[in-house]
Each structure stands twice: as C-alpha cells, then as structure tokens.
C-alpha cells in the first residue's frame, strides 16, 4: 500500500507544479470578468459590424471588408474563428496570400477542426509560389500528437482538468480500497492528465512566444545575416511559411520546414500570434 501511495502523491504534486504556469497564463488570457465589457453589448456590436463587413465583402469591396474584420479582431471584442476566417477570405480576394494564411491560422487556433478554414488554408497554400517540403517526420509527429492539433487551448485545458479530477478521485479511491482496476484507472487518467497538461502548457507557451510566421509581401530576400550587406541566400514569396528562431533589431532569423535558415526583414513578415 505504502509503496503505491507515495508515487501517486508525488505524481499529484508534479501535476500541480506542471499546471501552475498554464493556470496563470490561461487565467490572464481569459481576463477577470470585471475587466471585460458586457458580453451582451459587445456581441451585439460585433454582430452589427460583422454584418456590415459581410455586405461589403459580397459587394466586392474586399478592402473595406478586410478593414472592418481587422477592426473587430484588433479591438477588445470577441476574437472568433469566423471573423478570422472571413478576414482570410477578404485578404485572399486582395491577393494577399500571406495575410490570408495568417488569418486562417489564427482561425484554426480558435477552431482547429473547422473544415472550411482547413479547406481554404489548403487552397491558398496551393497557390503560393514557394513550394517548401515538410519533412515526413513532422507529419508523423502531427499524426501522433493529433489531440494537440485537434483541440484549442481551452478545450485542451478542459480535458486536462477532467483527467486531473479523475486522477484525484481514482487515487483517493485507491487509498481506501486496494483494487487493481482502481490502480490501472488511476494510472490511465494520470497519463491522460499529463498528456493534456503538456498540451495545454504547449498551447500557452506558443501563445506567449509565437514563432509561426508568414511572408506578407510579394517577395523578400533571405540573407545569411541580419542585414542587406549579407549574402542573399534565396528569395521567399508571399505566403511562404516558416518559424522565427531569433530576432535582431529589424531582422528575424527564420527556419523553413525543409531546414533552411536565414534572416529576413521583420517588416516583410507577419508573425501569427
């Protein structure tokens, strides 16, 4: 009994420490209720502006529609996947593939299983000039960690909390009754809690330190160092996606999915935060 109880207690303590940082960051992200505007009023305003933007879009005034959508997501109002999705569509119509991809990516962060967003993102990617290979290991990893990519941060955290509660309940039951079933249920729920906890922590970290970025100008040069005086290694075009590794004033060190690295001007890039 004693030998089984101690690891469970340590696991529980570890779980608590593990989730401390996501808790803080998540809570800050949600904001305390008194600091937020009244949801009813806000939603009402958002709906009105959203409808006007949609009308502009249907009338072919994509520039105006994009400005309205951007206004919605840049303000303190609700940032929904639908607004980002429509903003992506408007940017696509304006042939701004990089900005469209960035908007779809932001929509996917809020609604990762939204099929319309996935379809449009795939379509816009197929139109970009740079065809960059993604290593098979990346695809395999994404398949293995499907739960991380299929859930957004709040969903992942909710799943973590459910597993965390289950772990605690089963562990308490184990204290009072020795049963193999209870023991295995505790271990299973603990594994789930750790998995979703790690996923939540990863979501929170990526939100606090965004690295995904996309080229938002027609063409940009990738240099071997942070300056125009460095050798131009290759060019990237509107919509090329990569990750930001480090920053030097005015320049970003980026890494492409195929492993190539270089420096680009930060004004030519939109970081997907």
């Amino acid at each position, binding site marked *: 009994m004693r030998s089984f109880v101690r690891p469970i207690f340590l696991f529980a303590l570890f779980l608590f420490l593990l989730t401390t940082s996501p808790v803080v960051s998540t809570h800050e992200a949600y904001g305390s209720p008194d600091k937020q505007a009244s949801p009813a009023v806000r939603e009402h305003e958002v709906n009105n502006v959203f409808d006007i933007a949609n009308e502009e879009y249907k009338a072919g005034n994509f520039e105006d529609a994009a400005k309205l959508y951007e206004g919605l997501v840049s303000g303190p109002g609700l940032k929904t996947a639908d607004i980002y999705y429509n903003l992506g569509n408007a940017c696509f119509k304006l042939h701004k593939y990089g900005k469209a991809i960035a908007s779809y990516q932001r929509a996917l962060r809020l609604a990762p299983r939204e099929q319309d967003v996935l379809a449009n993102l795939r379509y816009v990617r197929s139109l970009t000039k740079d065809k*960059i290979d993604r290593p098979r290991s990346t695809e395999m990893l994404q398949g293995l960690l499907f739960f991380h990519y299929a859930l957004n941060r709040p969903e992942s955290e909710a799943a973590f909390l459910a597993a965390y*509660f289950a772990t605690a309940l089963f562990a*308490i039951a184990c204290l009072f009754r020795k049963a193999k079933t209870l023991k295995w249920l505790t271990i299973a729920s603990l594994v789930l809690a750790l998995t979703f906890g790690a996923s939540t922590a990863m979501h929170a970290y990526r939100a606090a330190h965004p690295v995904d970025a996309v080229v938002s100008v027609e063409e940009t040069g990738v240099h071997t160092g942070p300056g125009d005086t460095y050798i131009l290694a290759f060019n990237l075009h509107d919509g090329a996606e990569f990750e930001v590794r480090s920053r030097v004033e005015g320049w970003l060190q980026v890494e492409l999915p195929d492993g190539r690295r270089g420096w680009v001007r930060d004004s030519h890039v939109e970081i997907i935060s």
Partner: protein
Amino acid sequence: MSEKFRFLKFLVAVTRHMMWKGVAFVLLLAMSVSAPAALAATSQSGLSVELELSKTQVELGEPVALKVSISGSSDSAEPVVPDVDGLQITLQGRAQSVQIVNMEVKTSRIFTYVVTARRKGEFTIGPAEVTRKGQTIKSDTVRLVVAEPPRSQPTATTQQGGNVIVEASVTNANPYVGQQITLLFRFARKAGASIGNGSYELPSLYNFWSEGIESRREYAQRIRDSDYIVTEVAVPIFPITEGDIDIGAIALRYDELVDSSHSRFDSPLLNDPFARSFFDDDFFKIFRSGEVVKKTAYTAPIRIHVRPLPDEKRPNGFKGGVGNFTMTGRLSGNEVKVGESVTLTITLSGEGNIRDMSDPKLEVEGVKVYSDTPSINVKNYHDVIVGEKVYKLAIVPQREGEIDIPKISISYFNPATGRYEAAAAGPLTLKALPAEREVLTPPSATGPERVVGGQGRQDILPIHERVGPVASNRVTPWLAAVWPIAYSLPLLAYALCFVLVKRRERLRTDTAYRRYKFATRTAESYIKDAHAAMASKKWDEVFTKCSRAVTDYLADKLNVPASGLTPADVKAELSSRRVSEALLKETIEFLEACDYGRFASSRRGPKVAREYIERAQYLIDRFEEEEAIKQ
C-alpha cells in the same frame, strides 16, 4: 648701432611683405583673366579626362592599375589609351559615379586598365583621348618606372645570408582558361636560425580568380648539406584570361637576429616565422647582444601560358565550367497529388570552378517547375578546390498519371581528357495522384464561391454569415469560473485523504503509537468510572479508578505493560525519562495515597473522593504538557 640695425630689419620685412603682396596681386590678376577663359573652354567641351596610376614604380611582372576618369558627361565614347611599347594595357572594367552636390548633378565614368610591364625601364602612358560630338579631349600623361625584381630562388639565398631560401612555382604552367592550378610558395629557413615575425605578400593576381582558401604545411628537408624547415603555402587559383600571364614576385618579410650567440633563442617560438617571438618582447631585448634585422626575400616571377578552351565540339549552353563533375538527382517523394509540390534535389559536385557551371534546365509537359537559388559549398581538399552545388526545384504536377522527368545534364570541359563532357542525373519517374477532394461542412453560407473541391475547384469557400460563438467561446467562460478551485481542490482532497489513511494505517500496525495516541482517552474513561463510583459511594473503587487512570495513562504513553505497574516501577520509568522531580514526587505520592485510600476507611467520603479525582485529572493534564514523555 643696434637701433639702426633694428630699423633696417624692419625695412627689409616691410619690403618683403610688399613684394609678396605684389606677387599675390599679379597672380590674382592673372587668374582673374585666365579663369573665365578656362571655364569657357571647359564649358564648351563639358568634359575632362584624367589619368591615374595606382603605383608609379613597380617591379617587372607586377601589375598596376590605371584609372581613366571622364567627368562631365555620361554619353562620351570609351577612352582610347595609346599602346606603349613594353607595356600590356588591358581593360579590366568600367564604373559610373553620379553625385548631386548643391542641386547640381555631376557624372563621371571610370575605366580601369591593368598595366603589366614586359621589360624594365621608364614609360610614359597617355594621353588618353575621349571623343564626344566630334570634339576630342586629351588627358595628361603619367610616368611608370619598371625595375628588375630582386632575384629570389637560389640567388635570394646568398642575399639573405644563407639562412632563407624562397621559391614559387605553379602545378601547371600550361593550363586551360578556368582550370584550377596551384601557386606554391615555399620558403626554407635553416634550422637554428633566429627568424621571426615572418609575413608573405602575394602579388596582385588580376588575371586569376581565387576562392581565397589557402593551405599551409611545414616539413623538414635537407638542402645542400644543411637542415632546413620548409613552409609551403598552396594557393589554388583559376586563370580567367588566355595567353601569357606573369605572376609577380612573392615577397617574404621577416626579422632575423644577427647574433653569434643566437643559440640562446633557439626555441620553437622563435622558429615559427609567422608567430611573434616570445623573445621579441621589450623586456628580453635588453638582454640581447645581437641585432634584429628586417629582411625581405623575393621569389622570381613565373610566366604561365593559358590555353583557350577548344571551340571544337563545344556543346550548346556551355557556360565555362572546367574540371571534373558528377551529378545526382533525387525526388523527395515518388508520389504527389496534383497541385501539390515535390522537391527535386540536384546535387552537382566535383573538382573545379563549380561556380561557373550553368544551371540545370528542366521543362516537363504538364508540370510546373519552380527553381530556387542554389546553395554552394566549396572547400580546399589537398590543394584541390572541390565543391558542391545543390539545386532545389519544386515540381508541381498539373495532371494525373505517370510523369517522366528526363535526364538533366550540365556540360563542362574536362582538362584531364581535353574533351567536353556532361554531368547528368536521371531520368526519374513521378506518379501524380488525383488532387484531394475537400470535405466540406454542412452549408454555412451560399454563394457563387462554393465549388466542391478537387481539381475543379476554382476559388475559396464562402464567408461565414454568423460571427459565432465557436467552441472555444463556450468553454472559456466555464473555465474562467472554475479555475481557482479546479487546480487546488483535487490535490488538497487527495492530500487530506492520504494523511487520514496513513494515520489509520499506523494506528492499526503500530501498537506503541496507538497506545500513545489513546492514552488520554483511556485515562478519561477511568476518570469517568471514578465519577460513577463516587456517585454510587463505592469509595475504594474511586481510588482504584483514579490510580488506574494515572498508571494506565503512563503505561500507554511510555509503552510499558500496565498490569502490575507499581509506584516503584512508575518512579523508575519516569526517572529514566528525566521527568521533573516535582511531578515525579507528586505522582508517586498520589499513587501511594490511592493505594492507602483503598484500604483505609478513614479516607472515605465524597470530599476526599472528589479531591483524588481532581488530582488524577490534574496529573494527567500535567503529563500532557510534559515533554519528557512525548514521542
């Protein structure tokens, strides 16, 4: 006398001052007359031509740069620099400079020539002529003095006192244009010679292109019955012009300690000619009796003859690659969906001027090909420049089915065989699968944009008509409400249960612990019995229960058997645990009084019984605070 002298001196000074003023006045007058005329002349032509030599004195074979600057016009013809007997003047490049000064645009063109002397002597170059709109403008002339370079090789040895030998050579004196040769510079220093601070200076290699990757090695050699340490520097170079090319002298500059007792400084540090000697420090200079002499040794110039590449069988698209190369091609996948990309990586590698190799051309019907800037990696491998050039081509099929990527080849000239050859990769086969059909959600909007995906899809899916709420918005408020207790409650609950279970487990398994924990409860039970006995006027039982309350309490606390525990035993146990003397004495007196009370009828009555019950309770309370009996 002295006053007269002073006066005369003053007069001389005034006269001299006036004379200078007069001269200045005359000069000013002359300038004011001539300047408008000069300006008029310049404005008429709008041109000025100047000649400039980078050096006015050179050694034979050493190239020198000649600049012809044409100011004031950007549409003039190229300057004509007259031939000079004994000099070879070759145009190297041209540049244009535009400056805006005080809202005035000033344009100048600079033509750079390389001048190489074929013999020693004094030469006059120019004037250069520039023609514009029928007018010819001439520059001034410049003078160049060409001297014989100091002989290096064997003769240099005698000049430097026999301690140093320098020589230069090339691995191939008859290369093709673009073929790599190696310029070898060797210098040998006699073992034990005090030589330091060595540096070498290569001649200007205008007619060559270099990767700037030198290699250096050092070895010992016996030359003319003396031991020498030889340092060899190998510089791979590529000739870029045809004909005879002179490689000028390589200069070796070094310090030599001329001292009969130089063996004192015979250290490895001193022997490294490129290292600053430890003994060159000022501190050590005061101990030296010898003298450090700065010396320079020169190699003899080298003449090579560069052959042009043969015109016969020169392939189309040949861009000048010379060497020996191989090529491989690899697709990142053998299957790809229509509209998606697969990368064709072509790796060209080998010896030679890989930078001059032309880029591969690939055209396949039904496939879009996007090329990228190739990456080049060059290194010096045993004095041979080897390199790798990697091209990445994005292949995007536009139709389904098998796609044959033809053989890709790049031509180069192989100097070893004297023929044009080709590095080739492929052919390769790629299977293009049908494009993925999009899985669409139930119609959230209608409009002309919605075209079911796949190959026929022409546009994005339409916008969403409603703003939400999406899943995350439903979860977020719920999480915000529960998060303060959600994280702490399970852990606290578990911790509480854990402590409870642990305590229960210990009570079950640890007798001493259980007795210790329940000692007070047992004593209280006896006190309660004593109260009951007092109420039923069973006085002897009151004393018995009071005595048991204290003895059993102590037996439980001290984990000793309670049965048969006499006051003497209690005293011994409490003394061993260093219980305070006063409490010990009080306890023993109480227990003895209880024993006495059980049998003495004079001590019976409710007052005495209540007193003993209170004393028992008091003693138990005292022992509860007594540190000596705590676990």
